């Protein structure tokens, strides 16, 4: 994670950009049992801010992208759990290990999101590992 300040957003922009992380944080909590919820919520927020300033769009995009990895991992976990409940599949070491790994990644995501929301609210630019790099590639001024 990188912290620098190439932008000088005003207070309104900082608040909006910070809200994108808070939105995704809320969506993670709500969407844990049904992972698609967090992606839909973040997409709606992203679309709502398409015409906002570069700083706001940049952080909305990063918040959206960071949801996708958790979405994939959580969806696999959910489908595996449902198959155990409704088919002859049983709980195995691999399943338990996978779910622990997913929980760890979710917690990491939550911590990173809270941190990003705080920093962005103060007008500081936060660039996540990988997601920040991709955001720079796709988010145009």
């Amino acid at each position, binding site marked *: 994670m990188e912290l620098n300040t190439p932008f000088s957003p005003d207070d309104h922009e900082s608040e909006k950009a910070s809200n994108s992380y808070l939105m995704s944080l809320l969506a993670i909590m709500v969407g844990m049992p049904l992972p698609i919820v967090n992606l839909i919520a973040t997409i709606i927020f992203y679309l709502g801010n398409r015409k906002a300033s570069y700083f706001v769009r940049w952080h909305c995009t990063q918040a959206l992208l960071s949801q996708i*990895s958790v979405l994939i*991992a959580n969806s696999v976990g959910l489908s595996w759990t449902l198959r155990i409940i409704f088919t*002859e599949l*049983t*709980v*195995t*070491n*691999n399943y*338990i*290990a*996978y779910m*622990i*790994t997913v929980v*760890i*990644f979710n917690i990491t995501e939550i911590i990173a999101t809270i941190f990003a929301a705080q920093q962005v609210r103060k007008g500081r630019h936060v660039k996540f*590992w*990988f997601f920040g*790099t*991709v955001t720079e*590639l796709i988010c145009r001024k």
Partner: protein
Amino acid sequence: MKKAIFQLLIIVAAFLLTWFLFSKINFTGHMDLDGFSTAQEKKLGELLLESLSQSKDEIKHDSINQVVNNILEKITTANKIEKGAIRLRVFDDQTVNAFALPGDQLIIFTGLVDYCKTPEELAGVMAHEIAHIQKDHVMKKLVKEVGISMLFVIVAGNGSFEIVSEVLKTISSRAFDRDQESEADIYAVHLLEKAKINPSGLSDFLFRLSQESDDLSDELLIISTHPGSADRSVAILDEIKKNPSKYKELHYDFWEHRSED
């Protein structure tokens, strides 16, 4: 772009590594069996098999072996069960019986093969016993009926011949509990469906047993290990109806010759 791909690979690798490391922890192995390891289970299975071999002759090169091995291969291959994971042995005994031993061993008596009117019936009984193995019912039953301490004594080599024989008798002549029998029936239906073998053979077999339940001769020992056969036969048919499939009829000379006789 290269930087993004590199970072993505690092994240995926970190996820897979974390998953791999956690999967090395035996979360499920110690749940019910109080630390009885796979190696100890295998050793117990070998001791019980040795005891069985002392009282009965094992059949290794007979047409029956070809039949049962072929059915086992069909079931295991279709269900992605590792080849050789289930060790099948046939013993010369006119008792109608089949049972699972610890260490993933499936024991079949020649009496059972003779009693089955179709290969599907035999495949049904075999799938039922494989289900007991897959669901780890064998060790759970032994722990419940013999006690974990006694099993440790036997594995340590301190159990007398009589004790091992008694444990063998427990595993070969007493039923699993009702829930485990039902679970094994349903699981057997799924195993057979995947192998394209008609699961109604298991239902037919159990129904026939229920009709002959007044016959308490020693040869029909399987009745004592498969109680409530009529109800289970109906439950199996209900399960089959849930997933109508096309099956391949099994043909073996063993039954063809018998029908000619």
